[in-house]
């Protein structure tokens, strides 16, 4: 047996099989990482590793196992969408950990979270006093969502009657000197508008590394030449590079 060749071929196939399967499973696997998703992901990875390198078993056996995991994941996703009862069985529900500044010990015990862990989670949300918490929920993916008490909520523009603009995204229109026409159209701009703005900035399009239309409809331009000094280098001593 040409072991190296067989491993290369099996690894090549495995790489693309998991790429295709991951795309089929979709974003849910990453965005909503429950304990089950985590274990499921590890198991799929372990099966894929065996498919690539375990020459004592047929690759097809591992492929079959991978496919079964994919089908079951699909099935659970589908059942979860169709039935809220099964969705609850699969993913559990958010649990209230704190309410009106009070820690709900009974619920903490139920989800096996210590007060120290809860305080750490609050600190990560920039909340350093339990009194500031209106509601703290443990989400099914293990994260804690916090709604501060009303006095601690940040002031909004509308509270102060400050005029505001509709929120928009920054849209990339030039990448490495190449115009992205699709994005220009998206922001209702044309090439002439873009070239006019570039001319005003006194740069050539070939010098532009990145340009984008900002939320306020102005053009941001970054050139390849940065002309930046070394005064912000945080390195303390001469290293290997």
């Amino acid at each position, binding site marked *: *047996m*040409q072991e190296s060749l*067989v491993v290369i071929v099996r690894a090549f196939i495995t790489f*693309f099989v998991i790429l*295709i399967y991951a795309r089929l499973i979709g974003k849910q696997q990453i965005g909503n990482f429950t304990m089950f998703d985590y274990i499921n992901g590890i198991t799929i990875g372990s099966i894929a590793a065996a498919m690539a390198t375990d020459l*004592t078993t047929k690759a*097809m056996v591992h492929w079959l196992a991978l496919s079964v995991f994919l089908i079951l994941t699909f099935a659970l996703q589908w059942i979860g969408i169709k039935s809220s009862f099964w969705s609850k069985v699969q993913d559990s529900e958010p649990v209230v950990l704190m309410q009106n500044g009070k820690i709900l010990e009974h619920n903490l015990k139920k989800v096996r979270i210590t007060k120290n862990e809860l305080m750490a989670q609050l600190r990560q949300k920039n909340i350093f006093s339990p009194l500031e918490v209106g509601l703290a929920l443990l989400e099914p993916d293990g994260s804690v969502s916090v709604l501060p008490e009303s006095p601690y909520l940040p002031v909004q523009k509308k509270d102060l009657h400050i005029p505001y603009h509709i929120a928009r995204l920054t849209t990339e229109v030039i990448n490495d000197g190449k115009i992205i026409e699709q994005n220009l159209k998206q922001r209702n701009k044309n090439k002439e508008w873009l070239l006019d703005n570039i001319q005003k900035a006194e740069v050539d399009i070939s010098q532009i590394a990145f340009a984008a239309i900002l939320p306020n409809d102005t053009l941001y331009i970054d050139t390849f030449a940065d002309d930046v000094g070394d005064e912000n280098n945080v390195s303390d001593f001469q290293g290997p590079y």
Partner: protein
Amino acid sequence: MITLNKMLLYCIPTLFMLLSAALLAGGTWIKEPLGEKHDIMAQMEYMHSLIDKKEWEKASDEYDNVEASWETISKRVQFSVERDDLEAINETLAKIKGGMKQKDTSIVYPELYYFYELWEQLG
């Protein structure tokens, strides 16, 4: 309307999956002879009949054909079978060769039948 790009987006992964599955699961038919050459079962059975007649010289010549066929087939099936199965066939072929050198049917016959079983299960 389905564009060419969209069609390729679905066709290439599907084709890749089908070809990969064929390569990884096709051991049972990949092991079969592609032409008249490398028909290892026919060669083995002919060698078996020569051993039955105690024609050791001819059987030894036929063994060389069996070995050459196995060399080719093993390269073809290595992606879809277990390494232990390939090694078991290598081992039994070596024992058959040794048995024929000794002209000892008590060594050769068990290995011949073991080979038939391994061949049947291969893939």
